[in-house]
């Protein structure tokens, strides 16, 4: 640019003192703001990581070391025995096959429950957002209020309902229970998400002759990845971590992992084997943890899409 040359030489000639600040404002690495910001973050991060650290460290120690040492010190001698024991040999009563059995039970419970609950809730949300019919809102409000009902209150009525439809104690019964209790929050998420989609899209599809299911399957679903990620995360963690329903609505040979964890932790054989307990605890939490670590970013995005736009 020709303009550039008119003023520049004069300025360049003038000393830096006269011209004053030049270029980016200097930002020191250790400015007070940064020290405060990162300091706070690191302290809080430490608070959040402490329990995990203790769990891991303890699970790698032998019992004698645990008895003597302090819980924060790293293991002097790393042993994986507690992990092996927690996974395959820890006892509850006469069953000494650790968490391994519960793991597969949990998988068998979680997968169909997650699929069913999300299938139902997404259709609900879609119907509520785009195909409102008279009375739909009433049911929705009931559902939302239902989210607040403590599960304990509903145990007994559900026992009766399941008994009457002949599903008590079966895997299908438990899957239904999970779907029922996952419904309020999931429906809310899906409804919010679908409502925030442009109305024109929906109208255009209808003008093109697509019906209820057509629009849902061909238009809405392909655009709903973020919210499905959120739903999957919430359900996988919720169902995997469930204890109450797992213990009440199943029988011992189909106990999920959490119930077995509780059994192992509470089956105190003389001394509490903290290392085994910790290993068992980590093993039980592993699946949801992995799900989180993998999909953390999508989770935040999905939450923004489903939860924030009210």
């Amino acid at each position, binding site marked *: 640019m020709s303009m550039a040359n008119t003023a520049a030489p004069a300025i360049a000639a003038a000393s830096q003192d006269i011209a004053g600040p030049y270029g980016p404002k200097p930002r020191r690495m250790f400015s007070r703001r940064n020290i405060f910001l990162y300091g706070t973050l690191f302290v809080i991060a430490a608070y959040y990581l402490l329990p995990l650290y203790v769990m891991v460290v303890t699970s790698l120690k032998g019992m004698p070391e645990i008895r003597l040492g302090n819980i924060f010190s790293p293991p002097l001698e790393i042993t994986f025995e507690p992990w092996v024991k927690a996974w395959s040999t820890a006892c509850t009563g006469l069953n000494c096959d650790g968490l391994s059995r519960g793991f597969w039970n949990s998988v068998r419970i979680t997968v169909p429950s997650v699929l069913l609950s999300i299938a139902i809730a997404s259709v609900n949300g879609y119907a509520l957002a785009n*195909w409102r019919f008279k009375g739909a809102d009433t049911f929705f409000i009931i559902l939302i209020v239902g989210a607040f009902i403590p599960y304990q*209150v509903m145990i007994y*009525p559900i026992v009766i309902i399941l008994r009457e439809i002949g599903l008590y104690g079966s895997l299908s019964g438990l899957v239904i229970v999970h779907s029922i209790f996952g419904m309020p929050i999931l429906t809310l998420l899906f409804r919010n998400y679908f409502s925030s989609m442009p109305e024109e899209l929906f109208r255009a599809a209808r003008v093109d002759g697509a019906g209820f299911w057509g629009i849902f399957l061909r238009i809405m679903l392909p655009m709903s990845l973020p919210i499905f990620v959120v739903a999957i995360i919430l359900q996988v963690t919720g169902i995997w971590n469930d204890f*109450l329903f797992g213990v009440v609505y199943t029988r011992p040979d189909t106990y999920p992992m959490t119930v077995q964890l509780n059994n192992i932790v509470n089956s105190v054989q003389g001394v509490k084997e903290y290392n085994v307990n910790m290993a068992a605890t980590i093993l039980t939490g592993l699946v*949801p943890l992995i799900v989180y670590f993998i999909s953390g970013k999508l989770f935040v995005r999905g939450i923004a899409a489903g*939860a*924030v736009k*009210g």
Partner: protein
Amino acid sequence: MSKSERPNPLFRNLNAKVASIPMILTAGVVFVGGTLWTVLYSFTNSKLLPRLNFVGLDQYYRLWVTPRWLISIENLLIYGAISLVFSLVIGFLLAALLDQKIRFEDTFRTIFLYPFALSFIVTGLVWQWLLNPDFGIQHVVRGLGWDSFSFDPLYNSSIVIYGISIAALWQGTGLIMCLMLAGLRGIDEDIWKAARVDGIPMWKTYLFIVIPMMRPVFITTLVIIASGIVKVYDLVVAQTSGGPGIASEVPAKYVYDYMFFAQNLGQGFAASTMMLLSVVIVIVPWAYLEFGRRK
């Protein structure tokens, strides 16, 4: 496009209704039906099995003179206030910190969020262990030479409910942070610029401009926190089993214990009904305002 191919409104509604059958059944049969059933049997003296032997308000009378129920209510209020205030404050602060265009944002966010992936049972166990005075934090600090250091919140009746909240906050603030972060990211960038041009300090911008703008997020968050508060159970069981004594009892545990341990369904149902009633009083007006009058 010919007219005849356009969906018939009646048929369209029918489809939506068919699709909503699971929701209608859940809401109608399970939630409403179960609730009515519970309320009905709360007026009976059912013990182990539900029986329609009405005793009027006896169960309620007994409920409100039982010290454990009163303590449970008090604990729930304290726990609720703490969770609500601290979850919101900490969750928002964390989100605000993460929103400062910091490095390693993903790492920090993952760290703050991971406890949410863990069950209350796991959370409870770990914190019970950390807070155990015989080998937890207190033990370690004393081992460092500070002999009078005392930190045993789970073993001290007067503060046990606060001790339980430590674990609750550890577990729950990550999600709140996520919600808040999502909310912050949804704020128009120009608002921040305008505030900077106006010379409004950052904290004032948050307090007077950004937070009021995040009302919907706060409401969603509030609902999530509140629903968790009423339900608090596992955390208490895993950490203290209601102890020491009955100092950390909560209503949900009272319901469960009296329904199943004490084999006094009537009493459990009466307590359930009280909980339901409070939920309804708080939630229904909100739900109606929030969802009922839209569009």
